[in-house]
């Protein structure tokens, strides 16, 4: 097989292109490593921040109503949001917080345990989403009020479900896993 001048030019061009691509890929990988784009910690924090910002956008009106003491309106706003995102953890946690503030302890326990089950960050003291203090308060009161009632009425399914939820929150506060 003989190579003419054009074959040599094409061969040379292919070799130059391959070397250039390799150099580009190698440099790109180095840039990624230097900029930390593939750093899992950074990616996790970015995701958390993005989530926080989105939650703030969605639930901002609820928080505003709650802060000015308009708790019934805040609950209605949550009901409205729940139409689009039923069972969303942040909404469920907010509902539990408001239910507790309005004196519905059993319902607050149900909501808070459901929220923590779907997003464990709410029990994590270091998380920006943390509701640990509230959960501790609810568990303390629940153990005082709900637990004795549930123990004296084993046939009461809902009351015993509330007790199960209380124990769940208690174990999560103590650092227990799912």
């Amino acid at each position, binding site marked *: 097989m003989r190579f003419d001048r054009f074959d040599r030019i094409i061969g040379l061009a292919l070799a130059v292109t391959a070397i250039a691509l390799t150099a580009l890929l190698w440099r790109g990988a180095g840039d990624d490593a230097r900029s930390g784009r593939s750093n899992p910690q950074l990616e996790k924090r970015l995701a958390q921040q993005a989530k926080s910002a989105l939650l703030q956008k969605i639930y901002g009106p609820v928080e505003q109503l709650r802060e000015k003491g308009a708790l*019934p*309106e805040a609950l*209605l*706003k949550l*009901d*409205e949001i729940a139409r689009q995102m039923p069972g969303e953890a942040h909404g469920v946690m907010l509902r539990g917080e408001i239910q507790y503030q*309005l004196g519905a302890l059993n319902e607050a326990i149900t909501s808070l345990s459901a929220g923590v089950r779907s997003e464990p960050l709410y029990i994590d003291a270091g998380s920006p989403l943390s509701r640990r203090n509230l959960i501790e308060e609810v568990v303390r009161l629940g153990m005082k009020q709900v637990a004795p009632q549930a123990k004296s009425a084993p046939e009461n*399914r*809902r*009351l015993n479900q509330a007790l199960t939820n209380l124990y769940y929150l208690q174990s999560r506060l103590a650092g227990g896993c799912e």
Partner: protein
Amino acid sequence: MPTLLLLLLVFLPLLAGCDQPGSRPVLNIGFMNCNNEQETLARFRPLTTYLSEQVGVDFRTVPVDTHEFEERFAAGDFALTHTNSLLYVILKENHDLRLLLTESRGNFGPRTAGAIIARKGSGITSLDDLRGKRMVFGPMMAPSGYLAQYDLMLQAGLDPERDLDYYAIPSGSFKHEKVVYGVYFGDYDVAAAPALDLETMTRDGKITADDFEILAQSPLIPYCTFGSAKETDPELVTKVRKALLALTPETTVAIDGEQVKVLKAAWIDGFEDLQDRDYDLVRDMARRTNMPPYQVF
């Protein structure tokens, strides 16, 4: 002939083991109408069927108008009752009705509240603004649609009989929704709306949270209540109670050839064991507003 005799010998004992029509006691459960008879029957027939199956008694679902309830209960028409908390207090006070269980539904479980609402942007932002306004209340015997709001106003130093321009109560069924829409469409300035109706109407997309200003909301008071007449067999009452507490969202019964979820059909989340003293808030409200059973002329 011997074959026929043999068949009779085999099948007769089996037939005797079955429940024959009329062989079980028949007892009435009086269900207070919330909106209308048709709705009451649709809601509570599955629950009544379930109780009949569990307890071994043929219960009948009897829809009852709120204002006829006491008279019919006094006449011995009902072994069990399902009423609002004010009617429970009246029947307890006047006829020694026994508390069985309290129904649980919505954000506050076995409790609910009454709210006073105005259209957002109407300029009405507090109870003080109610003077000289047009108000619409729910039915007069409704704890969270009339009693709680009337009491809230009295407690705030407002006399609904004197300080409002006028107030009205809608006629016909679906009064609570009519009250909310009455303000929404501007027929009235303010309304007495049950918190639960605001919640369900928002969840159903009929209204939004931004449509209304909640001027005040009452403390939480017990929701709808099952009671038993003092003459009803205590053993049967215990069975009913046990059956109600055992209900789960998955419990079904056959109604007109279909399997129907009992709790879902009845719009109930479950049942709770409140104490009679939990109804003292309702009693206090009834006393302050001069309502039955403490009404003085």
